[in-house]
Each structure stands twice: as structure tokens, then as C-alpha cells.
């Protein structure tokens, strides 16, 4: 027993350690080059005839940089676009259109980093995007085109829009007005706050860069998807702003040399979300605009509106460039050195501003030299000299990534050093692009920055954990169907980790497995006893609730945006009272449950009555309800107030007077009241149960566990979106039906593991980072508190798994079963006396079994062993899949899946052990 506990503890400790080591190898911290870039030394002065330190003249001196959040390429270039003015500019050649490939993670903060530094953001930035307060992630110390523009003589920046920029660039802006994107229901105000500054700023001549970041279009996407009726009007609104700015550039003297860039930071998928690496998400538009462009675009594609490129992706309009290319291109066009950490390549079409080939070469060579520094830092052992005579082995196959780049750099060196007249400047330009494109590809690709030894160590540790757990497992024989189901699910799941298409569609696996498992439970129960009303068989009811639960939220990639219960309209607009009736029922159910516990606690402290007497408890029920109702009502009002701001379309069916009243409440204060009330109830019930246990001479009743579970449910639904709260009513039904079935411990383990996974996906989560829901992470938090926000974020996104892990402890201890007196009524209605006796005996036996399980902890130990094995095997297989087959974890967006798996399990185990430990052990 002691050895087993020791092994299990070690196995559980190993899992987070393994994940941590693996993660540091998988998301290595990229060292960046500090300091502001200066113009690179050119070299080859004799061969090329240029003077060291000379800079080609820049065609522009001012920049208007307009970011429209989630501006997908087709929103500007497509045939259904509302941006007709931009399209007219493309036709007349004063606008140069591109699709700018945005590498995943397609979230605003990392994408702003990519646009401004030209580098590929690391996974660390994703985490920091969520913990926005963190100041270590600011770009104030990094080299960006903002820093370069500010460093120029008389450089002044102004910024209006998304306050991400203000956080990333503290103290950079002369004038600024930030808007927050916390409530995505705001389509208009958030943009008007930007637009109102535009006319006066266009009259000011003191700035050399104006940055605008509009959020409204992204909000519309999040709310209603790319086909929302609000989408085209919003595009027209953006188009009008472009028209205003463009005509100012045409007419105002001080703006005559202004470059106007319009771009999206990322796109959106068919569901209107972003974060992953689907074509829609990674294809924002990019347009360079200026009257001066007319001279250089006679030969470019001026067709607009148009269709995506033949043979290209679904959203590939015109030429596809990288988002990181924006930084070096701006550097060239506005005349400043390319930022140090840039991995972008100057956009070829814009080279035409310099008719002299030598100017073009100077520009590109500096771009290439800057990139070469990063390549050198990554592969320090290779030769990147300027001397072609020091021939190394760079070009002998087989070539590693580093050798290939070194070889291509050799090519650059050779061609620049060559004195032959046959080698034209254009050839040299091609050679430079050849090197830079390769460097961009290699340095941006994920594989190049893995730390393989750490990956291997992490994976090995996960395997060690599996092996340790293996020795703690209960005897494998005899085979039970539950054991076989457990093993089969685990094996299948591990195999599925290697099928990249199932990573996005993982929910389907769980939904499928759970249906099969519930049907098996029906058959297994039918073998013991046939129930004449088989439609109402608990297992069939489980199947029916499961069917509703799985349609609640559409998740995954393949059918993203398909209709589900939440989006079907039965909860929207006028009929939203249906939703609130269900939400109210959920709160009412929990309130009544908690009131029962409070009633019991009143009896405990009443000297005249016996707390084991159900009648005495019932007599205090009213008092209990009176005591708990304020908490339940506050929690409900908090949800209503939050939803009225976050998703007003879900509250149109509610009395508008009530809505106006709750809208005036301070969300932070109300949330704190709910949390404090819940915490107070926990403490109160713990004290009363402790006293009760002492009165019973140390014999626990299991009531504390149930009380904690009910209060946990209250906390969990406070952390859940209103439209998902009825799911917890359904989960409660499932829990009830499961408690009606006479499940073996192994069956309980298998069931709850399956439901843990199912609930995660049913709540609308998926393995894509875009499904992470931030809205409830700030409940009761004012200002910035990384720890609190992180904890709430975790709890609100993994609430379903937590719920079922806690439920598993109750089921395992046979707690929360219908009490015997309730069962008696059922028994009385039966005809056969014999049946009655059998039933009673079985009830007594199962209660007794449950008590025994609680007491000796054997079943609990087995449960923990099986869950630990599950976590270990799943972690190990995700790690192996990620290491061996990059496509599974390709792109940082999908890497979140890894965190998803790990997260579910850590919470499942950690939370399950804390809660379950309280319930299963202390109560024994």
C-alpha cells in the first residue's frame, strides 16, 4: 500500500515535470538581438562602385498605418467586398494589393509583434497575449519600425485604436487614445473612438507615423461570423475612412510624401474566430496606397474586384507575401535601417521606386546582411564570410538547414564579387532574393527551433511515469468489459494522436465513444434486470442527454460555423427567455441543493435537535433557502449583467427595465460578492460538518463531499458563459442517471474519464487556441493580476472536466445516490414482493460497498492509478506524435492542443485529487 502510494505520487509528479521539460524544448525561448539597428556595412565598394554608408533616397517621409482587425483578404479584394474605394484605387494603380500570410498563432498581440519587428513571434507571446499586464513582453526595448521612425529626426508617433499597441509600446506615442476589446458586442463605439481623431490628425503636420487599429470588424466576426449582415456595412465604414485619408494625402501639402498602408493583423475562419492556422485565419489583406504608386504599377495586376488566385489557397488574392515582409519594406520606403530581428524580405514590386539598379541592390544587400546575422546566430559553426576563396564544405550534400543557407550565402558572395560584365544587376538581385527567401523559410519554420534533447527527455520522463503507474495497476485479470473499454479507448486515443485530421476533430471521437459506452451500459443493465419502460432506462436517458449535449456547441475545424443549439436562434432575440429560464433553473437547482446543506448545518448547531433526523433537517429547509437565496440571486444577476454587456442579443427577451438596472451594476463588485458568498458557505459548512462528525464520534457521513460539490458547481457556472450554463443542468442529469446505475469502480473510472473529455468539447472548446474563452477570466478582477486572471481563465475553460472529476469522486464513494427512503417509494409500487426484497438488498449492499470503498481507499487507489495511467499515456503519445510527425503540431496554433491535453489532465488530476481527497478520504 505504501509502495503503491509512493509510486503513484512519483508518477504524478513526473508528469508535470515531463511537460515542463518538453515545453521548454518545444517552445524554446528565442534570444533576440537587443538595440536599434544601424545601416549595415555594404561591402564590395570596388566591385559595385558605391560608397560605404550611402543610402538610397526614400520615396516617403510619413506613414499612415491602418490596421483593421481580422481584415481577411476577401473582405477587401473579393467580389462581395464593401470596400469599393480601395478597389477603385487598385484599378487605377495607386494601390498595390497583397495577401499577407500571417503565421499562426493568429491572435492580435503576436501579429502586431510580427508586423512591427518583422520576426516570427514565439509561443511565449501567445501566453503573454492572455496575461496582457505583463510588461516583459513590451517591445519598448526591441527594434521595431516604430522605434526607428521615432528615432528619426523629429520623429513623432500618434496612435488610435486597440490598446494592445499602447501596452506593447509604452511611452512611444505623442498622442494616443486606446480602445479595449473586452466586450466584443461593441461594434460601433470602439471604432468611432478611433475615427473621431482622424480629421484633426490629418491637419497636424508634426507626426511622421499615425497608427490606427480598428476592432469593430473583428467583433462582428466573433459575434456572428464573416457572413453577418453587419459585415458589409462595417467594410463600407472602413472604406470611407480610407477615402478620407487618401484624399487628404492627395490634397494636403504636408502629406504629399505619405505612404498609406491598410492591413489586417489576421483573418478569420467560417465561424468568425481566429487563432489557428486555417486558410481564412492566416490570410489577411495588405494594401499599399499612395498617388505616387501610379508610376511603378503599370505592369502589375490591376484587376479588382477579383477571385482568389488559380491554384492558390481559398483566400489567396494577388501575390502572397509574408506578414513579416512589411517591416523591411517600410524600412526601405521610409528610409531607415531594417529592424534587427527582422525575418522579412523587401517586397519586390516596390523596388520599382528606385530606377537605378544599384540602389535596389544596396537596399536588398542590407536586408540580406541583417537576416544573415540571425542565421549566423542560429548556426554559429558555419562559415558566412564575405571571402569567396575560403571555400568550405557548405555546398556538399547532404545539406542540413544551416548548410543550405550557408551555401546560398556563398552564391551571393560569389556573384557580388564576380567582375564579369555578363552578370547583370538583376541577376544579383535574384541571387539575393534566393538567399533571403530561403533564410525566411528556414528561420520561420517551427522545426528549426526545437530543442531535441529536451523533447526526448520530456518524452522519456512521461514514459517513466507510465511505467511507474503500471506497477500500481490492479490485477489485469479477469478482463472486465469496463477494463477492456478503458484499454481500447486509451489505445485508440493514443493512435489518433498521430492522425492530424483527428486532432482538430477530436470531439467526434469522444462523442462516438461515449454513445457506444452508454449503449453498452444499457445492455449490461438489461442483463441484470429488464426494465419494462426501457425508454426511461437510466442508460437510455444518458444517451439522450448526451445527444443534446454534443449538439450544444459546434466545435472543430471541418464544420466550423455549422448550426448548433446555441446559435440556432432559439436562444437569441425575443426568444432568449428560453435560455434564461434554463439558466434560472440551473441556478435554482443549485440554490435548493445548497440550502439543504445549510439547513442541516443549522440543525447541527441547534442543541435541541438531532442532525441525523431528516425531519429536523426538513423543518429548517425554509431557513436554509432564505439563507442561500441571496447568494443564488446575486450569482444569477451577475450572469445577467455580464451577458447584457457581453452578448446583448441573448437578453432581448428579458424585461428591458431589469436589463437597464443590471447594466448599471459594477460587474467586478457583484462577481466578488458571489465569490465571497461561495467561500463563506464553504467555510460555514466545513465547520458544521466538522462539529457533526465529532458528535458522531468521528464517523463521517459523506455530506460534506456533496456540499462541496454543489458549491463547486455554483462557482463553475459563475465562470461559464450564459449560453453554456444549461449544459450544467444536463451534466447534473447525467450525474443523477449515473448514480441510478449500479456501476463497478472500473466502470465509474471509464465513464468519468469519457465524460471529462466530452464536457471539455461540449462547452465549445477545441484544440485550437481560438476556442479559448477569455470573457470570464476577469470576473471580480479589477486592474491586472496575472495570477488571478490565469487561474480564472483556466477554470472557465476547463470547468467541464473539473466538474466531472469531482463527480467521479462522489460516484466512486457511492455518494449522492438517491437516499433509501426515496428508493422505498419506488419499490412499493412494484408488484412482486420478491423483487422488492431483492431491490432492497441490493440497495443496502451497494451502499455498504460504497461505505467500504470509502473506508479502505482501495477503490480510490485503483481509480487514481487508472487516471494517472491515462494521463501518462496520453501525454507520452502527444509528445511522441509532436516530435515524430510535425504536421500534428505544426504551427503554434495547433501546439495549444498539447497544452489542452496537458491542461485537462493536470486540472483533472490536481483538482480531482484535492476535491476527491476531501471527499473520499477526510469523510472516511
Amino acid at each position: 500500500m505504501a509502495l503503491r502510494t509512493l509510486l503513484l505520487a512519483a508518477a504524478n509528479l513526473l508528469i508535470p515535470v515531463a511537460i515542463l521539460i518538453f515545453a521548454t524544448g518545444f517552445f524554446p525561448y528565442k534570444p533576440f538581438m537587443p538595440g536599434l539597428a544601424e545601416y549595415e556595412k555594404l561591402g564590395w565598394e570596388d566591385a559595385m562602385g558605391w560608397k560605404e554608408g550611402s543610402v538610397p533616397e526614400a520615396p516617403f517621409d510619413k506613414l499612415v498605418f491602418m490596421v483593421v482587425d481580422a481584415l481577411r483578404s476577401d473582405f477587401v479584394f473579393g467580389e462581395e467586398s464593401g470596400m469599393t474605394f480601395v478597389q477603385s484605387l487598385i484599378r487605377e494603380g495607386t494601390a498595390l494589393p497583397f495577401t499577407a500570410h500571417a503565421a499562426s498563432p493568429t491572435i492580435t498581440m503576436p501579429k502586431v509583434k510580427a508586423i512591427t519587428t518583422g520576426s516570427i513571434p514565439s509561443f511565449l507571446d501567445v501566453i503573454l497575449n492572455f496575461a496582457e499586464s505583463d510588461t516583459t513582453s513590451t517591445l519598448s526595448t526591441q527594434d521595431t519600425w516604430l522605434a526607428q521612425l521615432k528615432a528619426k529626426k523629429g520623429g513623432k508617433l500618434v496612435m488610435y485604436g486597440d490598446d494592445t499597441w499602447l501596452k506593447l509600446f509604452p511611452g512611444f506615442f505623442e498622442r494616443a487614445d486606446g480602445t479595449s476589446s473586452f466586450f466584443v458586442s461593441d461594434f460601433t463605439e470602439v471604432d468611432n473612438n478611433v475615427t473621431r481623431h482622424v480629421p484633426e490628425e490629418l491637419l497636424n503636420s508634426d507626426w511622421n507615423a499615425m497608427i490606427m487599429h480598428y476592432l469593430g470588424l473583428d467583433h462582428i466576426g466573433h459575434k456572428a461570423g464573416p457572413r453577418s449582415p453587419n459585415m458589409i456595412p462595417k467594410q463600407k465604414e472602413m472604406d470611407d475612412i480610407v477615402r478620407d485619408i487618401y484624399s487628404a494625402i492627395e490634397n494636403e501639402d504636408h502629406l504629399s510624401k505619405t505612404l498609406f498602408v491598410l492591413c489586417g493583423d489576421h483573418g478569420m475562419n467560417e465561424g468568425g474566430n481566429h487563432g489557428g492556422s486555417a486558410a481564412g485565419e492566416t490570410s489577411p489583406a495588405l494594401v499599399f496606397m499612395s498617388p505616387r504608386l501610379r508610376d511603378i504599377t503599370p505592369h502589375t495586376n490591376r484587376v479588382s474586384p477579383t477571385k482568389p488566385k488559380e491554384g492558390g489557397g481559398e483566400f489567396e488574392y494577388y501575390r502572397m507575401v509574408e506578414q513579416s515582409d512589411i517591416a523591411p519594406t517600410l524600412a526601405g520606403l521610409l528610409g531607415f535601417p531594417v529592424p534587427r530581428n527582422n525575418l522579412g524580405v523587401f517586397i519586390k514590386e516596390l523596388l520599382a521606386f528606385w530606377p537605378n539598379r544599384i540602389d535596389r541592390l544596396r537596399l536588398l544587400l542590407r536586408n540580406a546582411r541583417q537576416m544573415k546575422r540571425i542565421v549566423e546566430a542560429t548556426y554559429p559553426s558555419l562559415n558566412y564570410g564575405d571571402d569567396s576563396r575560403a571555400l568550405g564544405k557548405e555546398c556538399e550534400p547532404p545539406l542540413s538547414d544551416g548548410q543550405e543557407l550557408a551555401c546560398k550565402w556563398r552564391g551571393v558572395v560569389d556573384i557580388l564579387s564576380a567582375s564579369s560584365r555578363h552578370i547583370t544587376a538583376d541577376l544579383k538581385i535574384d541571387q539575393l532574393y534566393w538567399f533571403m527567401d530561403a533564410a525566411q523559410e528556414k528561420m520561420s519554420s517551427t522545426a528549426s527551433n526545437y530543442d531535441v534533447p529536451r523533447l526526448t527527455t520530456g518524452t522519456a520522463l512521461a514514459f517513466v511515469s507510465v511505467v511507474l503507474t503500471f506497477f500500481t495497476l490492479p490485477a489485469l485479470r479477469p478482463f472486465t468489459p469496463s477494463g477492456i473499454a478503458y484499454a481500447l479507448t486509451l489505445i485508440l486515443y493514443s493512435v489518433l494522436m498521430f492522425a492530424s485530421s483527428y486532432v482538430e476533430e477530436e470531439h467526434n471521437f469522444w462523442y462516438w465513444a461515449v454513445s457506444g459506452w452508454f449503449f453498452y451500459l444499457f445492455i449490461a443493465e438489461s442483463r441484470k434486470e429488464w426494465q419494462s419502460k426501457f425508454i426511461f432506462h437510466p442508460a437510455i436517458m444518458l444517451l439522450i442527454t448526451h445527444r443534446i449535449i454534443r449538439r450544444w456547441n459546434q466545435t472543430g475545424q471541418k464544420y466550423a460555423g455549422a448550426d448548433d443549439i446555441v446559435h440556432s436562434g432559439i436562444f437569441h432575440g425575443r426568444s432568449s427567455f428560453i435560455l434564461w429560464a434554463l439558466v434560472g433553473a440551473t441556478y435554482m437547482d443549485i440554490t435548493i441543493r445548497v440550502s439543504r446543506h445549510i439547513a442541516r448545518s443549522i440543525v447541527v448547531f441547534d442543541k435541541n435537535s438531532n442532525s441525523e433526523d431528516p425531519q429536523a433537517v426538513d423543518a429548517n429547509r425554509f431557513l436554509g433557502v432564505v439563507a442561500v437565496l441571496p447568494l443564488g440571486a446575486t450569482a444569477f444577476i451577475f450572469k445577467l449583467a455580464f451577458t447584457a454587456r457581453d452578448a446583448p442579443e441573448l437578453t432581448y427577451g428579458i424585461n428591458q427595465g431589469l436589463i437597464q438596472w443590471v447594466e448599471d451594476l459594477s460587474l467586478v463588485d457583484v462577481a466578488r460578492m458571489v465569490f465571497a458568498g461561495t467561500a463563506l458557505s464553504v467555510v460555514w459548512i466545513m465547520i458544521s460538518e466538522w462539529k457533526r462528525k465529532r458528535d458522531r464520534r468521528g464517523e463521517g457521513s459523506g455530506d460534506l463531499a456533496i456540499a462541496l460539490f454543489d458549491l463547486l458547481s455554483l462557482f463553475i457556472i459563475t465562470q461559464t458563459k450564459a449560453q453554456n450554463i444549461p449544459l450544467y443542468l444536463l451534466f447534473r442529469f447525467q450525474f443523477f442517471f449515473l448514480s441510478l446505475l449500479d456501476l463497478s469502480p472500473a466502470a465509474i473510472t471509464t465513464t468519468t474519464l469519457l465524460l471529462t473529455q466530452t464536457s471539455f468539447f461540449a462547452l465549445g472548446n477545441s484544440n485550437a487556441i481560438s476556442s479559448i474563452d477569455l470573457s470570464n477570466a476577469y470576473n471580480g478582477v479589477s486592474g491586472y493580476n496575472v495570477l488571478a486572471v490565469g487561474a480564472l481563465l483556466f477554470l472557465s475553460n476547463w470547468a467541464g472536466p473539473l466538474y466531472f472529476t469531482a463527480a467521479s469522486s462522489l460516484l466512486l464513494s457511492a455518494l449522492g445516490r438517491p437516499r433509501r427512503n426515496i428508493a422505498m417509494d419506488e419499490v412499493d409500487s412494484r408488484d412482486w414482493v420478491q423483487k422488492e426484497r431483492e431491490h432492497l438488498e441490493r440497495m443496502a449492499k451497494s451502499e455498504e460497498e460504497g461505505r467500504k470503498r470509502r473506508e479502505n481507499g482501495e477503490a480510490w487507489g485503483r481509480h487514481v492509478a487508472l487516471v494517472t495511467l491515462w494521463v501518462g499515456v496520453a501525454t507520452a503519445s502527444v509528445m511522441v506524435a509532436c516530435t515524430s510527425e510535425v504536421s500534428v503540431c505544426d504551427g503554434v496554433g495547433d501546439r495549444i492542443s498539447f497544452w489542452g491535453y496537458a491542461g485537462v489532465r493536470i486540472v483533472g488530476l490536481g483538482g480531482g485529487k484535492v476535491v476527491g481527497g476531501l471527499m473520499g478520504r477526510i469523510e472516511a
Partner: protein
Amino acid sequence: MATTVLNSHPKPRAPATPTDVLPTDAAQLYTHIHPILVLSLYALQFPSIVADPVPALATALVPLGILQIAYVAICLPPTGGTATPVVDKKKPGSGAGEKGKKGGMRGTIIPGFLSLIVVSIVIAPLLAAILVLFGAPLTTHHAHTLLAAAHISFLATLPLVYVHGVDGAAWRDIIALLRPVDEVYGGMIGGVVGAWLGAVPIPLDWDREWQKWPVTIVSGAYVGWAVGKMVGGFLKGRKIGFE
């Protein structure tokens, strides 16, 4: 620790026996040819089912129904209304064949047709409901689901209805997997499990036409039925243990 389920279920009825294929030469031969015929017919129609499931599945029901009636008429003993006559019939041995021949069309084809009607009216809608519970679309594709259910029930349950009739006790045992295995019962289990396994390829990103609803689960049911029928024949008389 492991309590056998059968002990806790005292049964007043005679123990159930596996269904035997009739001892005539034709029956013994056709029972092996039948799955080949059914599967080849399905394979033949597969392209049109993929192209347009509803009309193709509806058309395919006709030959499937005919083949299944032929199979039960040739190979299986019809129900006698209760469970006992089936047992009775087997005792005379060669007499059963005579009796079967004497009954001719009226004795076998008509019960076959009756089974078909029971299956279409009762079991197919029930199965469609179960399909929906397992995740079939609820608001769309009604014809698809109903036809899929019809195919699965024709394959898996028509012979069972023919052999056991509408005897409630027998059907309870069938659902609870308490009957001894035989090729008819094995075919049912195989068909249902096959249909369930058939759902696996649907979410994969292969973008094939045949991944659409309900092609994969119908195919799974056909293959599963054939395999189950064969395995059931091998393991005849065994009971399914759940302990």
C-alpha cells in the same frame, strides 16, 4: 467478486437454444452464398449510393428485401408464434426438411413477408431513433437516416424476427445479449457494431465523397453483418459472457 449475471436472473422458461440452419442441402449451401450475394449487390450499387444516397438506398432496399426473404425462407426455421415449436421442429431431424418442403411457399415465404413488414414498421423507425441518439442529424437528412435504418434492420433483424417472431421474452434476451450465439444472432450483433464503427471515417479530412452521411455506416453495417454471421456460425451455442 465477479458475480455471474445468469445466477441473478432465475428464468422459468426453458433455456434458449441457438437457431440451426435447416438441414436441407439447399439451406446448407445457400447460407454461405447469401452473404456473398448481398455484399456483391451492395458493392455494385455503391457508386450510385455515394452519388445520390436517397434514391439509390431506396432502390437497393428492394433486392436486399428479396434476398433476405429468400435466405430466411430457404435456410431458417420460421417462428411458431412461441419459442417452443422451434425447439420442437428440430427434434424430428430429417422430418423438418420434409415439413419445410411441404409448407412450401405458404409456410416460409409468407412468414418472411410478415417479418419484412414488422421490421419496416416497427424496427426500422426504432433504429432510426437510435441512430439519431448516436449522432445522426436530427433536423436534416431524415430520408437518409430512415433509409440507413431500414438497411441495417433488413440486414440485422429480419432473420431474427423470422426465427423468434414477436416473442417479448426472446427479444429481451436478444437485446441483453443473453441468447446463445448463432449465425442469425451473430449477424445482428455484427451489423450493429459495424454500423457504429462505420462512423469513424466521417470526420477525417480526406474530403472523399463517400464520407458523407450515411454511406459509411451503411457500409459498416453490411460488412459487420457478413463478418458477424460467419463468426456466429463458428461459435454457435456459445454465450456472451460479461463478467
